[in-house]
C-alpha cells in the first residue's frame, strides 16, 4: 500500500528526513515510531501530499504522492498531529461538510455520516456544537472525518497525543476495529505503549534515518536472537547481533523444586543450547531451533528426569526493540 524510496527532506540545510526506505503492506498496522524531532511528521506530511520531498519517491496505492496527489488523497485518510474543528458547526454538519468535500453524492451522505458516527461512538453527540466537545470527543470526530470517505489507508499522526488513559484505550480499540475491517493504518507515535499489541509492523526512525523497519515479529525475533547483554544494551554490538544469520530464540524454563540443576547439566550437554540458571527453579535458554524443535527439547528434559513446569518463549516488546535500536540522538 505504501512504498517509500530514498525519501529525503531538507529544511534550510537541516536534513529532517534522509534516505528513507520502507514498505507497508495492505492490511498492516504500521507503527512509525521515533523520538520527538526524528522526522516522523515530516515523512507523514510528504505521504499525505502536503509537502514535497527534496529527493526520493513515495507511492500510495501505486500512485506517486508527488505526481498524482489528487489520486493519493482519494485512497488516504489523514489525521494530522494538530488539527482544529469548526466550532460553529454541529457534529453532524461537520461530518456532512467533509462528506461533501470528499465528493460523496448527496443521497449517500447521510448513510456515510451515520456509519462513521456509529463506528466512532459519536451518535449521541450529533447535535452538539463541535467547539463544545471534549478533547477525546474531538479526537473521535477527527477520526470520523478521516474515515468518512472509506479510505483504504489511514495515516494518523500522533493520534493519542494529549488524551487521557481511558480515551487512549478507546482509541486503541477503535484502531483494532479498523484493522479488522481491513484498513491499512500508518500510525506515528513516540509513546510505545500506545502501539504495543496493536501494530503488525514498525519503522523506527531517529534523526531522520530509518534504523529498522519490518514486521514486528521479525524484528523482535531478530532482536531476541542477540546475546542478552548486547540486545538489551545500547552498545554498537547489537548491529552485529541483529545481523546474525541464525537468530536464536530465548526461553524461560521453569522446573519443579530441585530439578533445575539437573536440567542445567542436561542442557549443557547439548551443543545447540546455551543455558543459564536464572534463579530458583528457573533457567534461561538460548536455542536456535524453530517452534517444532521445542517439543523434542521438552521430551529430552523429561526423559532425563526433569519435571518441566513450563517453557516460555521470551518476547522482546517494542520498548526493548526501540531502546536497543535507537541511541537517543536528537537533531
Amino acid at each position, binding site marked *: 500500500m505504501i512504498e517509500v524510496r530514498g525519501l529525503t527532506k531538507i529544511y534550510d540545510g537541516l536534513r529532517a528526513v534522509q534516505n528513507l526506505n520502507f514498505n507497508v503492506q495492505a492490511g498492516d498496522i504500521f507503527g512509525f515510531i521515533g523520538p520527538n524531532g526524528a522526522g516522523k511528521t515530516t515523512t507523514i506530511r510528504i505521504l499525505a501530499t502536503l509537502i514535497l520531498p527534496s529527493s526520493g519517491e513515495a507511492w500510495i496505492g501505486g500512485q506517486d*504522492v*508527488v505526481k498524482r496527489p489528487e489520486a493519493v488523497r482519494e485512497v488516504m485518510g489523514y489525521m494530522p498531529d494538530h488539527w482544529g474543528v469548526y466550532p460553529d458547526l454541529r457534529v453532524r454538519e461537520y461530518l456532512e461538510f467533509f462528506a461533501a468535500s470528499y465528493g460523496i453524492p448527496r443521497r449517500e451522505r447521510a448513510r456515510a455520516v451515520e456509519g462513521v458516527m456509529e463506528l466512532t461512538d459519536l451518535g449521541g453527540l450529533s447535535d452538539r456544537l463541535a467547539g463544545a466537545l471534549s478533547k477525546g470527543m474531538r479526537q473521535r470526530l477527527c477520526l470520523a472525518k478521516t474515515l468518512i470517505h472509506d479510505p483504504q489507508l489511514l495515516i494518523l499522526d500522533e493520534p493519542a497525543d494529549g488524551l487521557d488513559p481511558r480515551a487512549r484505550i478507546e482509541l486503541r480499540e477503535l484502531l483494532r476495529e479498523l484493522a479488522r475491517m481491513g484498513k491499512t493504518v500508518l500510525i506515528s507515535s513516540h509513546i510505545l505503549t500506545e502501539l504495543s499489541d496493536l501494530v503488525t509492523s514498525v519503522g523506527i526512525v531517529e534523526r531522520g534515518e530509518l534504523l529498522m523497519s519490518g514486521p514486528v515479529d521479525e524484528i523482535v525475533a531478530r532482536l531476541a536472537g542477540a546475546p542478552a547483554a548486547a540486545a538489551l544494551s545500547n552498545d554498537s554490538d547489537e548491529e552485529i547481533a541483529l545481523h546474525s544469520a541464525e537468530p536464536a530464540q530465548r526461553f524461560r524454563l521453569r522446573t519443579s523444586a530441585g530439578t533445575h540443576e539437573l536440567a542445567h547439566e542436561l542442557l549443557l550437554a547439548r551443543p545447540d543450547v546455551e543455558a543459564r540458571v536464572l534463579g530458583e527453579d528457573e533457567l534461561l535458554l538460548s536455542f536456535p531451533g524453530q517452534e517444532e524443535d521445542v517439543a523434542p527439547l521438552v521430551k529430552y528434559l523429561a526423559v532425563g528426569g526433569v519435571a518441566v513446569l513450563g517453557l516460555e518463549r521470551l518476547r522482546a516488546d517494542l520498548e526493548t526493540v526501540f531502546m536497543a535500536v535507537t541511541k537517543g540522538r536528537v537533531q
Partner: protein
Amino acid sequence: MSQAPPSPGLPWRERLEAFLENPILMKELSAAFRRRRFLYLLCGLLGTAGFLLAGALLSADPKLDASVVGRQAFGAFVALEALIVVAVFPAFSCVSIVEERSNNRFDLLITTRLRPQQIARGKLGAALIYGGTFLIGTLPLSALTFLYGGVSVGQIALSYLSLCLLALIVTSHGLAISGLTNSAPRAVAGAFLSLPVTLAVTCTPAFYLWVGPFLYAPLAQDDDWLNWGQILLNADPVDQTLALAVPLLWVLGWAWLGLTVGANGLQAESGDRATPLRLWFLGVWTPFLALGALFLSLHPPPDDDPTLLASTLEVFFGAACLAFSAGGVYFATGRVDPRARPLIGWRRIVGRGPWSGAGFVLLVALASYVTAVVIVTLVPDLNHLLQRGSRRQPLEVLLWGTLWSLAFLLALTQAGVWLSRRFPAGVARAGLLAAVLTLTSVPAMAWAFAPPREGGSLLHGTFLSPVTVLRSITVQAHLADRRLLLFAPPPRSRGASARQRTRDLRAQGAAGVEVHKISSALYFGLGLFLFLLNARAYDPDANPEGRAILQIPPVESPLAPAPPATSPSDLDPVPSPPPRGADRAEAPALEPEEADEPETSARTEEREAELRPEQVAGEVRPEDPSDSPPAPASRDGPEPSAALGAEDEFVSPARDSEDGSEDP
C-alpha cells in the same frame, strides 16, 4: 464551479448538483449566519445608514425642489454605501483563508477532494453573500428617495451594479491578502494598507474605461456621458458591447487575479500554482488587448485632440506590457515544478519551469499583440484611420509597440532566468522589480520636471525606459520637434532664429534614430545574449548540470521491483494504478543524441545490486552516511528527484520555504 469530477454512472441531475455544489460556501454561510455578531453588525450598519439618510433628507434646504433633494440624498447614500463596502467587505474575506491555517484546519481541508480554486470560490462567495445581505438591506432605504423623486430605477440599478463590482474587487483583494499571509492580524493590516493601491489600480482605469468610450465619440458629446445609461441604451450593439465589456473585463480580471492568488495560498506545497496564473494571463490580457484594438479601430480619436491616441494606447498597451512584465518576472524566477515533464530542445520555452515560464509569457504576449494587430487590420474603419496623415498610423504604432514589448519582455524574462540560477527567487524578483521601477519612474519624473521642448533633448539613459519609448512610438511623426531622437547633431545655440531652429530640427530628424527603434534593438540584443547564455547553462551536452536542471529521467531498469501489489478493492474508486514509471513514460522522447544506450550486463548487475531488497526494508542503517547504499542513478546524470535534492540551486530549502509550511 468545478468540483472534483463525479463518479461515472451518476444521473445527470446529481452530476449537475455535484458540479454546482460548493461545500465551503455552505459551511461558511451556515457558520457565519449562526453567529450573533452577524445580527449585531447588520443592525448596526443599517441603523447608521438609515440615520444618515434620514438626516440628509430632513436637513435639506426646504427651498430646494424635492427632486433635487432626492437626487442629492441618493448620491450621498450611495457614497456612504461605497465607503461601507470598502471598509467591511475586505474584513470578511481577509481572514477567511488565514484562519484555516491559524486554527490548524488547513491540512484537513486540502487533503480532501476539494480543489484550492473551489475553496477560494466558496470563501469569496460566502464573503460576498455575507456582506451582500447588508446591501440588500439598504434597498428599502434607497427606495425612500422615490418619495422625493429625481432618481430613476435605472440609476438605482446601475448604482447597485457599481457597488457590487466594488464589493467584488475589495473582497477578492482581501482574499488574495489572506492567501499571502499566515496570521490574522497581518492579514487585516495588509488588506487595509494595500487597499488604496488596489482601488487605484482597478477602479480608476475602470472608471476611465467606462466613460472613455463616451468621451471619444461618436456615442456622446462633451459631458453627456453623465447620462451614459440612456446613451448606452440608444447605442448600436457593437458599441454597447464594447462599452460594457472593456471595463467589466478589467474589473472581473482583477477579481479573478485576487481569487487566483487566494487559491494559490490554499495550495499544498506540491500544488500547481503556475497553471491558474497562466490561465489568468491568457483569459484576461489577450481579450483585453483585442478589445482595445477593436475599440481603437471603431472609435478613432478625433483630429482635434492629438493626445487621445497616446492616452488610449497607454491605457491598453501600457497596462498589458506591465502585466506581461510582472508575469514574466514571476514565471521566469519560479521554481521547477517537480511534476514537470523533462523538456528537451524547443519545448523548454513552452512548458513548465523557470525557463519555460519565461517562454510562456512571451508567447501569450506575442499572441495578444498579433491578435490586436490583426483586428486593427481587419476592421472596416481601417481606411478611415489610414487617411489620417497628420499622425503616425495606428497600425505602425501597434507594430512598433508589439516589437518593442516583445524585445523588452525577452530581455526581462531571460534576465529573470539568469538571475534565478544564481540567487534565490525572492532576490531575483526584487532585483528585477527594482530595475523596472527605476526604468519607469526616473524618466517619468525627469519628463515631469523638465519636459523636452526640442528634439534631441532626451535625458541620457532614458531611452531604455518604457515611458520614453511609449511616448516615442505614439508621438506625432510629422512634428519634428516632438520626435525623440538619438544620435542627432546638437541643436543650434539659443540665439538662432526660429526658422534656423526649425531647419535644424528637420535635419536632425533625417540624421537621428528614433528612440523606440534603438531601444527595441538594444533590448532584443540583450535578450538574445542572455537567451544564449541561459541556453548554454541549460544544455545537457554543454553543461553536466543541465540534465539535472531539466530533470531528464534515467531509463528505468527492467529489474526495478514493481509497485506494491494492490488488489482492485484497495484502489476503489481510483482507477487501477499505472506501473511505476508510467509518468515518465509520458515524457517526450529524448533527442537522438540524448537517448540512453542499451544497458550492458555489467550495468544491469550493478543496478540489480543497487536495488537489492534488504535495502528497502528491514535493515539497520549504517551510522556513516557514506556507507549508505547509492541511490539508483542514470548513466548520464543523477536520478531526477535525487538531483533535485542535490541541486540546491533549483529546489533549495530557501525556495521551498517561499511556499510556507516548512517547519520540520
